[in-house]
């Protein structure tokens, strides 16, 4: 399954939830905002929201430094 993560094409071996994708990428779910196809996904829905063929995912880091 082909998806795009932060502008880069990725091949997922099987279907996954947002939570599963983050785990696969080794990203702490509390430290990012996820946008799927131009919609911000509520963190509480990460376990239910499915990633599908052709999805464009943006994983945005939470950064607070200045």
């Amino acid at each position, binding site marked *: 399954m082909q998806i795009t993560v932060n502008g880069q094409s990725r091949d997922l071996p099987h279907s996954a939830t947002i939570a599963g994708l983050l785990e696969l990428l080794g990203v702490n779910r509390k430290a990012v905002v996820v946008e799927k196809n131009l919609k*911000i996904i509520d963190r509480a829905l990460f376990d239910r929201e499915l990633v599908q063929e052709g999805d464009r995912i943006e994983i945005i880091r939470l950064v607070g*430094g200045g």
Partner: protein
Amino acid sequence: MAEKALRFFRPFPFGFGLFYFWYSMVNLVSKCLDVVWITPGYGNGGAHARRPMGRFPGEAAFSMDQHDGLLSEEDRLRYQRSILLEGFGPEGQRKLRAGRVLVVGLGGLGSPALYYLAAAGVGTIGVVDGDRVDLSNLQRQILYGDGDVGQSKALAAADRIRRCYGSVAIIVHEGRLTAENGVGMVSLYDFVIEATDNFESKFLVNDICVGLGKPFSHAAVSGYYGQAMTVVPGAGPCYRCVFGNVPSRDAVISPDEEGTLGMVAGSLGAVQAMEAIKYLAGVGRLLVGRLFTWDGLTSTAREVTLPVEPSCPVCLKS
């Protein structure tokens, strides 16, 4: 009679002298520092508070309307390269001269932002930061030098900018920006640079600006990474639309643990100043509805399109 009067007044000279000495010293110090005395906590940001009547005798009193935007011959020479720019011209420069920008946070982002705004000729710039300069700040906060360690950041920054760019009016808001003083403070300006170093302040600036319909530039950095977006209320998403709420402390790694470099904050601070300039001069396309991200380690810039969040409590309220 004379003797009686003398006896009556004899205890006074010492008291009067002390009072006069105190009064003179306060005046002298405030004139030397050219400090705009602003007391945090007042509803209008303290702009009504006591101000010195200029640094030297005969100098005009300070006013928020000091700059009418007219350019002198010296201005035309100084800002030659800006005026030459397509779409900018003398009209753009006049708009900068008439513009008022508040820089919230005078650290890694605020340092370059403030320098560039002042150098570009923004007429009035407010500065606010409750911190003092620490030795570990000097690695990236280029407003300060060795001699500033221990000094108030706002006063040291104002002093530096005044010495470099004498025609720019710098307004010092003492202390931190808070929920109490923020609305009055932000109201005084056309555009805000959100250059704070913590999530609480970032959300606070967002909520105040969106509530007032005030445009602002957000930026944040950590490690080799930085990001920026511009919020024009009503024209695109706000910071809360995208980032929701202050994250739990254990979730996000901070520059205190991860480290960061001056160049990362410098790049993003320059982007913020550019956004302010574009907004004031009315040129170009702002980072509204777009997050600019910068990875300094690989020199990779990206743009993430951002949607408006229909249920954002701050946008719904305003």
